[in-house]
């Protein structure tokens, strides 16, 4: 079985995010990191490989993005992927969800995986959608927000929380599965793995290499247009106490609760 894991480079959680007023796109300068949800997807792939129930031939990390996104692939490889694929092309800049999903599907098509894993959300934008977009293009069954997964030959049994409780769903392979962060505890890469990551095979692919049609990606291929960026409505902030002396803090909380008759 071959597993492809979709990964993404996102702005570091500690960096303040802003829109570039000129291009109306996210300002992607500043510190970046591998999207935390994707580390759970890589870990899930590693657990299938190490679990011994099915034979995993290789785990391939796949990303789309500018040159810098290579670092996300190095990180993915240090966490266990065997090699990586980087789709990078000027024509892809400005792609929306629809165009991004199409482009990623084209790369995956060239890899013919039995299972595609990804994190259910990225820190910087797309909300739980890419998995379903990619799956529709690949004509594969898909499920998002999976928190437990049991892999057998040819199929998966997944558990996820839906609107009315937990659903258990059986999915035939090949499939696209996006995972939640409760699915596992990702491992830390060893120093050796970090050092070795840059030596693992990294294939660069252009839009043409994977058969992406002109006009279907980038701004041209995007089906939404941003008309305006506005500030959010002002809201009233509550009272804030910084806990310096805990006895004092607790006194204040008790007084606050008492004032509102919550300690009757």
């Amino acid at each position, binding site marked *: 079985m071959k597993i492809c894991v979709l990964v993404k480079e996102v702005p570091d959680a500690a960096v303040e*995010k*802003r*829109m570039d007023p000129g291009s*109306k796109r996210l300002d992607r300068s500043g510190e970046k990191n591998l999207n935390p949800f994707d580390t759970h997807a890589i870990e899930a792939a590693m657990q299938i490989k190490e679990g011994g129930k099915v034979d995993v031939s290789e785990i391939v990390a796949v990303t789309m993005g500018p040159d810098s996104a290579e670092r996300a692939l190095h990180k993915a490889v240090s966490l266990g992927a065997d090699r990586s694929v980087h789709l990078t092309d000027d024509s892809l800049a400005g792609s*929306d*969800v*629809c165009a991004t*999903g199409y482009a990623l599907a084209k790369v995956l098509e060239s890899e013919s995986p039995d299972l595609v894993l990804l994190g259910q959300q990225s820190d910087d*934008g797309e*909300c*739980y*959608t890419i998995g*379903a*977009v990619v*799956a*529709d293009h690949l*004509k*594969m*069954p*898909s*499920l*998002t*927000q999976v*928190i437990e997964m049991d892999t057998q030959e040819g199929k998966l049994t997944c558990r996820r*929380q*839906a*609107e*009315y*409780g*937990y*659903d*258990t*769903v*059986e*999915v035939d392979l090949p499939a696209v599965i996006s995972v*939640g962060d*409760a699915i596992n505890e990702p491992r830390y890469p060893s120093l050796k793995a970090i050092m070795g990551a840059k030596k693992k095979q990294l294939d660069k692919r252009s839009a043409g290499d994977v058969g992406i049609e002109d006009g279907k990606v980038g701004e041209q291929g*995007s*089906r*939404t*247009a*941003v*008309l305006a*960026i*506005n500030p*959010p409505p002002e*809201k009233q902030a509550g*009272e*804030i*106490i*910084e*806990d310096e002396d805990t006895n004092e*803090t*607790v006194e204040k*909380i*008790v007084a*606050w*609760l008492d004032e509102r008759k*919550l*300690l009757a």
Partner: protein
Amino acid sequence: MSILTYALHFEGEFNKNSLGAVSEAGKLASEIGGEAAAIVIGGDDLTDDLCKSLGSYGASKVYRVRGEEGLAQPVVDAMAKVISDNGFKYALFGGGLLGFEIGAGLTARLNAGVTMEVTAVKAQDGKLVAERPILQDSAIVDVDYVGEPGIIIGRLNAFEIAEGGSGDAEVVDVEVEFSDFSNKCRVVKRGEQGESEINIEDAEILVAGGRGLGKAEGFGLCEELAQSLGGAVAATRAVVDAGWYPYAAQIGQTGKTVAPKLYLAAGISGAIQHKVGMQSSENIVAINKDPNAPIFEFSDLGIVGDLNKILPKLTEAVKAKKGA
């Protein structure tokens, strides 16, 4: 026809966010001079009466499809067919897991524009413009659609439920040939609750714990405080998923909605999916060590500090005060 919505149902009832979407579509359709319709999928439990009832929320027509409910891909097949046969301009979804999955799949199928986490929709010159907050809600973008249909996925509870529409909706049965891959997902069990029942809806005081408790045993701190306050314990999805606390205590989009007199949140970040379940609480107190945690944006009293230090002392102080 102009706006199509999907209405999810379970055990004879429609989902609240779906009803919000149907209501919003009804309102918007009349503003842009069109009609609103809904699509439903399921077995014999989708009775004529149940389908017709969507009329009172603003749907003039309900397309009923026989198929498996609870999965996204069969709905994508059904909506793609209904849209291409009838030419809808927009597909609108309420917040929630299936809305995201279905809306995304439909985007790919129809090569259509999509906007998610939409908090409001405006009718402008006969078109719809979606408002979407971005970057932790620090800005709101207005989004327009190129081509048709435009797909709008609402944020949870973004659309208000409005009853009192024009009466019964017309029910139209539609035959759908499902894609080969749609048949490759099967629901084995739906809506399982797991573990014991905890009644948190009736409690006037709730002490809720999140991942900041560090481990399952951390809930002991919440239980002790809840006991001293005479309240019950609630939880976030993150800790329920991790198996630290039973699902019956989960607050939020995929859990319960509560509105107690006091909601004390310990080690909870305040994600939107959690917020929707507790934002109507009369008094919200939050303890979090991260001064930038979103929960401080909607709490009445926020304490920036370590819950391990604060909770035990607070329990003692409440006991002392109540004993006095």
